């Protein structure tokens, strides 16, 4: 999104940024669990829209499919299965509100101060072998190559250090997810002791 594109780029950015922040506040303020989920969907969806505006298609779609399509639907599904009354209300005492607000402010201060301390590198100009000639927003191919271990976007003469791409972190995350799956299956498995007499009775 180039800077001259005032109406298209910056106005939309402002709208979606506002939607992200306001619905994030609404998540905290609202008392019904499903309303919180609704505002969370708006907030996360607007974040995905911000990614799309920044020409990061892949991360935007991943944001939608993982957080909105996956996590939130599981969350609402869990609420529906476990809630004792149809509209479960969560009421917080004034003390909890104060403590929560203080923690939130503290966290915001920490994030803000660490953001101030970062020296942001200039955005990559994309004149390498792979990204050259491809229109904006096509981040998929460089990402895929980086996941395979090749980093065509790095220019070694520019002082970048050599990197093996994202192969190792990707594999570590995969193994981590596998461990989580096995752990979940272990915790949720049917107990053999209680199952055995039932089978005995049937036979």
């Amino acid at each position, binding site marked *: 999104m180039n800077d001259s594109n005032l109406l298209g780029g910056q106005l939309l950015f402002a709208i979606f940024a506002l939607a992200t922040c306001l619905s994030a506040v609404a998540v905290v303020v609202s008392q019904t669990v499903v309303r919180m989920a609704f505002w969370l969907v708006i907030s996360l969806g607007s974040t995905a829209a911000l990614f799309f505006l920044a020409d990061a298609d892949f991360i935007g779609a991943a944001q939608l499919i993982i957080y909105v399509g996956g996590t939130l639907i599981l969350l609402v599904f869990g609420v529906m299965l476990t809630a004792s009354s149809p509209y479960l209300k969560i009421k917080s005492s004034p003390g909890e509100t104060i403590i929560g607000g203080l923690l939130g402010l503290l966290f915001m201060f920490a994030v803000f101060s660490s953001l101030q301390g970062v020296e942001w590198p200039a955005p990559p100009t994309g004149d390498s072998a792979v990204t050259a000639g491809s229109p904006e927003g096509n981040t998929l191919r460089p990402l895929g190559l980086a996941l395979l271990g090749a980093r065509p976007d790095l220019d*070694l003469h520019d002082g970048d250090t050599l990197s093996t791409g994202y192969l190792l972190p990707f594999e570590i995350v995969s193994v981590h997810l596998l461990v989580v799956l096995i752990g979940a299956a272990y915790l949720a498995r049917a107990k053999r002791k209680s199952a055995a007499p039932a089978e005995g009775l049937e036979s």
Partner: protein
Amino acid sequence: MMLAAQSIAGFLEGLVGDTFSGWGIQHVLAAAIHAVLLVHAFALSPFLFIWLERKVSGRIQDRLGPTRVGGLFGWLQSLADGIKLVQKEDLCPPAADAMLFKSAPYFVCIASFAAFVVLPFSSGWVAVTADCGLFIILAVLSLEVFGIIMAGYSSGSKWSLFGGMREAAQMVSYEIPLAICALVPIVAAGSLNLGEIGGMQRGGIQNWFIFHDPFTFVAFFVYFVVATASCKRAPFDLAEAESELVGGFHTEYSGIRWSFFFMGEYASMFAVCGIAGILFLGGWNTGLGPIDELLYAARNNSVDSPIGSYLANVIGAFVFVLKGSAGVFVQIWLRWTLPRLRIDQVMTTCLKYLIPISCFLFLGATIWPLLLATATQRSSWTPEPLGARFAAEVQEAETTEAFERQALNDGEEIQ
């Protein structure tokens, strides 16, 4: 219908002049034109398919279906229905959570409308060309469930709640085989860009990805079953289940909000069938080699004969819509032929059969090119030209990196 975004923007840039060009007015206007065209595609597909549903169901049950409104075949029936639905009272039950209840239909509509944004109707006739178009479409279509669940939960009725819960359970399971089956032709294509995938199947029916290898052939049918389930169409329409749940998630809805659910449903039926058309059935290519080549030549000759290029794209869009509509027709046919499954049968079908089958197909599709390459002594068996391009890119990236590493090492030695 849809021209490329750049051309509209470029045309308007000349029109608007320098005064406003800094504001990006031409981009906004181009986006508005695209949006209006897409809204029409989105609104007209339910209009057509609801009429088709009534007509086909009538014929299957040995009735005539609608015959009165609009003369021949009652083709204006959907418009009459729409006018009736707009006039109806917009009810909100006192037990419902009003805000969620009222916004849920819009969620369903927006999600299935957003899928049309990256769906190419012909070569280059797409509102947004995205490198990971298929991924975006799958992500956006998965949002539709949330609207259904919200409608079921916020209605304050146990029928709706049951419908919403069934939909959630069903969709959480069916999204997995849907994504895996969509990946099988992607392995053959080597791209997630729907425009590129469609273009690669030019030159005859043998180039369609459904006939690429045995795994894609089976994957098409598995995909179609899963896509039918993901649109909550019979025999998988447990979320509605009129015989047990009154109307399921939409029990409490009336008037235009009720019809929004069905607009979303029919539009997403067309969207998933369109994806099937692009991934497996050649997209906008006719499947007849010589005609395809002729159209391809006419399409690319936009400088000399813009009208010919435009007409070639119109024919392409017509072929694509025909393929998508044929898919929708089969879904309607299935609905009026097969009885509804029980919820446990729906879950069994997915978890015990469709997921293992799709995993096997995916594995087979990845091994198949290696086997073929070994058997035929060729270095690679990926389709031209994209496969070759991809291999070249990887090689280029690797050689550049190796070269630069070498250069760095040399430099260090000299120092």
